[in-house]
């Protein structure tokens, strides 16, 4: 339970921190896509016998970078290339799962998360990713802000803006890997988007949104974990419903006028 609690807090804090950018940049869908696209990595992890979270990291990072490369090369909008990559990778993961005779993993656990079964390695991976993402957010803060607000102006200012954009996608892929362990492939989107959207309704400045979103995310994840434990439910849906409940309350008391 202690491991599950640590896992829940990490998910609750990290997903909304990166999710704040995703929400304000209209990139929420890419988080969902990345969650589905890491399935082949997770399955491969089970096949070769390494922790699936470790195997998911390179898959997520590769897909995140491919999204940008494909949309640039093909001249397609990024949501189209996300759609293609997301479906292809998820299908590949399902085929691998179906053809493998050695894996004894329930697809439902992958889709909905199994935080109570999180291993010590899973926690170490999550902690390692947390450190990397926090360092990334701190290092790239001004560049991320610039590239998110005025992409063209930032690109003219320095080629570093492009690097910051790629770094953002990598960070998104990394937090998705933490999120999947707790909320599962299908519901990790809730942790990325809902607390950040709630904070967007409540506070003015972007940095305040990040901090508030992290606090709300942690509260939702921990509450959801306890609810799931006592009511014998899956943790992912419980966390999602708590986060959504907070969002509905915020919607009733919001201070931000519609843009």
């Amino acid at each position, binding site marked *: 339970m202690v491991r599950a609690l640590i896992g829940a807090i990490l998910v609750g804090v990290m997903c909304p921190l990166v999710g704040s950018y995703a929400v304000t940049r209209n990139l929420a869908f890419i988080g969902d896509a990345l969650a589905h696209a890491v399935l082949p990595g997770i399955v491969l992890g089970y096949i070769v016998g390494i922790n699936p979270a470790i195997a998911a990291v390179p898959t997520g990072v590769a897909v995140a970078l491919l999204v940008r490369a494909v949309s640039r090369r093909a001249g397609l909008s990024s949501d189209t290339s996300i759609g293609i990559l997301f479906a292809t990778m998820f299908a590949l993961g399902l085929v691998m799962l179906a053809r493998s005779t050695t894996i004894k993993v329930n697809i439902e656990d992958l889709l909905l998360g199994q935080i109570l079964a999180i291993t010590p390695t899973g926690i170490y991976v999550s902690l390692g990713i947390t450190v990397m993402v926090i360092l990334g957010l701190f290092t790239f803060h001004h560049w991320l802000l610039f590239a998110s607000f005025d992409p063209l102006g930032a690109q003219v200012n320095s080629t570093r803006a492009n690097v910051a954009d790629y770094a953002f996608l990598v960070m998104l892929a990394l937090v998705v890997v933490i999120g999947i362990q707790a909320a599962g492939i299908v519901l990790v989107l809730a942790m990325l988007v809902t607390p950040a959207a709630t904070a967007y309704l409540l506070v003015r*400045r972007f940095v305040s949104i990040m901090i508030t979103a992290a606090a709300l995310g942690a509260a939702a994840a921990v509450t959801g974990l306890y609810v799931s434990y006592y009511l014998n439910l899956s943790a992912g849906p419980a966390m999602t419903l708590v986060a959504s409940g907070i969002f509905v309350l915020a919607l009733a008391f919001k201070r931000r006028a519609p843009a």
Partner: protein
Amino acid sequence: MIAAPISHRASMSLQDVSVEIGGHLALSNVTFDVEAGTLMGVVGPNGAGKSTLFNAIAGLLPVRQGTVSLHRAGQESGGLAYVPQRESVNWRLPVTVMDVVMMGRCCRLGWFRRPGRRDREIVKACLGRVGLWDHRSALMTELSGGQKQRVFVGRALAQEASVLLLDEAFSGVDVAAQEALVEVLQTLRDEGRIVLLATHDLTNLTGRFDQVLCLNRHVCACGPPEQVFTPEVMEQMYGAHGVRLTTDGER
């Protein structure tokens, strides 16, 4: 004209520049020079290639042929600052006036250094110059069109840019606010910077700009505003309607 600090002086030269977008020639054989300390208006109809020209100068679009060269006075001289059309900006991101001007310091910071006291002092000075220090904590969405443009000019100042490109900076900006913006731009011009401003608005160009570049996929004319708007040039830009504009005495 006030003698400029050497660090801001820059000159720019475009030689025979052609740009292709999606297989179509958006600009062909564009040639013009801009001296240090010039405020230039870039005018032309929709689709004339004003934004394409700015994108090519800024390096956002590849040049199919020709050269864009920028000569800066010294190593200290800042680069080029680009203020895009308002549609290209993500207004959903709730950033303050201070945040935006601080973005101009990004290229001076490097990867691992956070903004320090000097950066904050520069940002304060830049906000003072564009008259928006009192609005420093306001969100960008709370400002008027003219104030937003002045924040972007403040950001270019914080970047210590020697060339400013402002795309459609007058759109959604009332005449009084346009005047305030032009006044700020004239002070930058007086320091030796090059300021290029694309606009649809052909009124009030005289007195505001030193030079006007008339564009319609090629250079129709380039020179002082009181000289360039001949009936021939207007016809090249706007067809028969352009000639009527000149004969009506609007120009």
